[in-house]
């Protein structure tokens, strides 16, 4: 092989400019690359693209499984129905509230946890493991234990905080419990992402700042946070997208009663319980659009990017 290659290469080189000869081989390589990727890419497009297109198609129809004969194309009528409905906007408000509250609290607690994990001197491994326990517990299981803890008469938390009432059956307290469950569950995830960002902060920078007389708080706000900015934004983006789609905690804790439905819960009620594929698909598409809008705002307005890639093409 090696004996015959150079003459062939030389031969080629005499016929065409060297660069093209090289790109010929490269092109073949790239084509092979594409061919090798194609099955995976096609499968991915099929499993992500097709369901999205299909739900858009469903959302343009009146289609209720219980009235199969009444199926028809209705254009944007389903969108008008959903967007003028008070239940939808109530759920939208509740979801936004849960999202903002839980993400803000998680950011503060997660940052504190990340700092503790980063600078823990004793038992660092133990601290990190213990912190991650809530994240390792299945959400539904955790939600059930919250539910029992807050149930009237049987729950220890309910007995402690409101011996007379049933906290899960009143709107404000139920929402607070949902946020609490959400925060408890995902703060470790936030802390983990932030800890990765903390590792990016060079220790010389901190030492230099300390030398210049910066207090601990100043070092945190003026050095650590700016350097960590990309990591913080990514963590916020992930959690905001997740929190906006909250379902399991609401489903287990209140099932959406007393006006605590999230948009996902409402979609479930219309799609799975109500069997109304048209309205349900419309809601799914709207949630999809809302999530896309959140991602867009984070990426374009705040300039979120993967940590380390901020130099390339970001404003």
């Amino acid at each position, binding site marked *: 092989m090696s004996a015959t290659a150079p003459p062939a290469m030389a031969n080629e080189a005499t016929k065409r400019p060297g660069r093209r000869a090289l790109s010929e081989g490269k092109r073949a390589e790239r084509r092979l690359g594409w061919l090798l990727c194609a099955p995976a890419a096609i499968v991915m497009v099929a499993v992500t693209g097709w369901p999205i297109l299909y739900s858009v198609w469903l959302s343009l129809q009146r289609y209720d499984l219980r009235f199969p004969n009444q199926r028809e194309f209705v254009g944007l009528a389903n969108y008008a*129905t959903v967007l003028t409905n008070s239940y939808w906007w109530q759920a939208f408000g509740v979801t936004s509230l849960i999202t903002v509250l839980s993400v803000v609290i998680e950011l503060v607690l997660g940052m504190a946890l990340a700092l503790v994990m980063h600078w823990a001197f004793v038992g660092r491994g133990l601290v990190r493991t213990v912190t991650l326990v809530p994240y390792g517990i299945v959400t539904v299981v955790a939600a059930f234990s919250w539910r029992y803890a807050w149930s009237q008469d049987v729950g220890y938390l309910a007995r402690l905080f409101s011996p007379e009432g049933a906290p899960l059956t009143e709107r404000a307290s139920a929402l607070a419990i949902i946020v609490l469950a959400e925060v408890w569950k995902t703060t470790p995830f936030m802390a983990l992402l932030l800890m990765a960002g903390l590792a990016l902060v060079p220790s010389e920078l901190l030492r230099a700042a300390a030398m210049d007389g910066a207090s601990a708080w100043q070092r945190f706000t003026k050095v650590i946070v700016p350097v960590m900015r990309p990591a913080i934004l990514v963590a916020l983006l992930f959690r905001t997208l997740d929190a906006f789609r909250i379902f399991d905690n609401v489903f287990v804790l209140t099932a959406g009663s007393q006006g605590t439905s999230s948009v996902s819960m409402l979609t479930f009620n219309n799609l799975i319980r109500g069997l109304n594929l048209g309205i349900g698909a419309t809601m799914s598409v709207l949630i999809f659009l809302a999530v896309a809008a959140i991602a867009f705002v984070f990426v374009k307005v705040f300039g979120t990017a993967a940590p380390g890639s901020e130099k390339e093409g970001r404003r």
Partner: protein
Amino acid sequence: MGRPTRGGRRAAVLLGAALLVAPALAACGAATDDGIVVNLYNPPEENLSKVVETCNQRAGGRYRIALTTLPRGADGQREQMVRRLAAGDTDMDVLNLDITWTPEFAEAGWIREWTGRHKEEAERDVLPGPLASTRWRGRTYAAAKNSNVQLLWYRSDLVEEPPTTWQEVIRTAQELQQRGKPGTVLLTGAQYEGLVVNYSNMVGALDGHILSEDGSRAVLDDGAVRALETLRDLARSGVTSPSLTNQREDDVRLGFQSGNAAFQVNWPFVHPATRAGNPQVFRNMKWAPLPGVEPGKPGKATIGGANYTVSSYSRHPDEAFDAVLCLRDAANQKFQAVKDGLPPTLASVYDEPEMAEAYPMRDVIREQLRNPALRPMTPAYQNVSTVLSTVLSPPSAIDPKATADRLRKELQDAIESKGVLP
């Protein structure tokens, strides 16, 4: 290299296919080995497997009933069956449906109509209330399996003569409270089906209608509006529990059992449960038909219960119909009434001597089943129920005229499956 590789790939593909198909083949294998299998989907009932055994013996090898237990919660049961039926699953033969689902499944074409000999046998001796729940648009789609009906339970040491109207109930309870005795009236007021049932009881007592007979229009006639008023007055009278809007069946039972109430509206399961839970209260625990609204006009009770239906996608419908007729025949209904506490749908079963011990209140139950209140019959019952429980909660906030207007609009959307469900 080419051939062996291809051969290897083929082997891998075959192996993959085999792994995918194996469970299905195994299932088919079982079917062909043992003859025809009738798959029965039923919510958990402790002694149903014994009934299945009895029927398998009686089938004498013509078919074998295989019992699959559904989730305990009604929503979970319905979701599983609906999802599979919508996909045309042929592995479901006999389905145990809550009586409110019959129109939904029939309208969607998921269950078979009962005709001829099967229909005749399925309808014989069935009490009028349960019988009505097996029909949709004049056709029969189900065989009544078991029924259920609420009663007014009261403490005979506090109340001499059971009241016959809600006004009397309120007055009696207020008098008890004035004398410093437990005078609470307990009923299921949480935002769920239990609240709908209470409202339906009152609508029934006034011969009112929430929907038109054919289920196509939300009418809320005079009776339905006056029932709103009755429900509101009861909730505002001060005799209900402070946690009325949280209470479900078991909360109501526990409240009564603890001795702090004079009345409860609840299903017959409270009778054995209270006997085990608090013998002291049980000694004075008596029952009466549900109160009415107008003096001299008896109350009506909303019936619950379950029906057996045969899936449209079943590959063995004849065997399935046959299996149903065995599963809910008089002997098996009596067995399950005594063992599982499921009130029978067949009138004659109530006369059996074994029933006297298990159901001392059987005469009242049978009387209520003869002239019951029915929940609205519509394929969109799930929607109707969700809207009703949302709008009626909390009952003390009902404004009869305005609430009725809102219900007419939202229920109309719900039965046409047009609006958004809460």
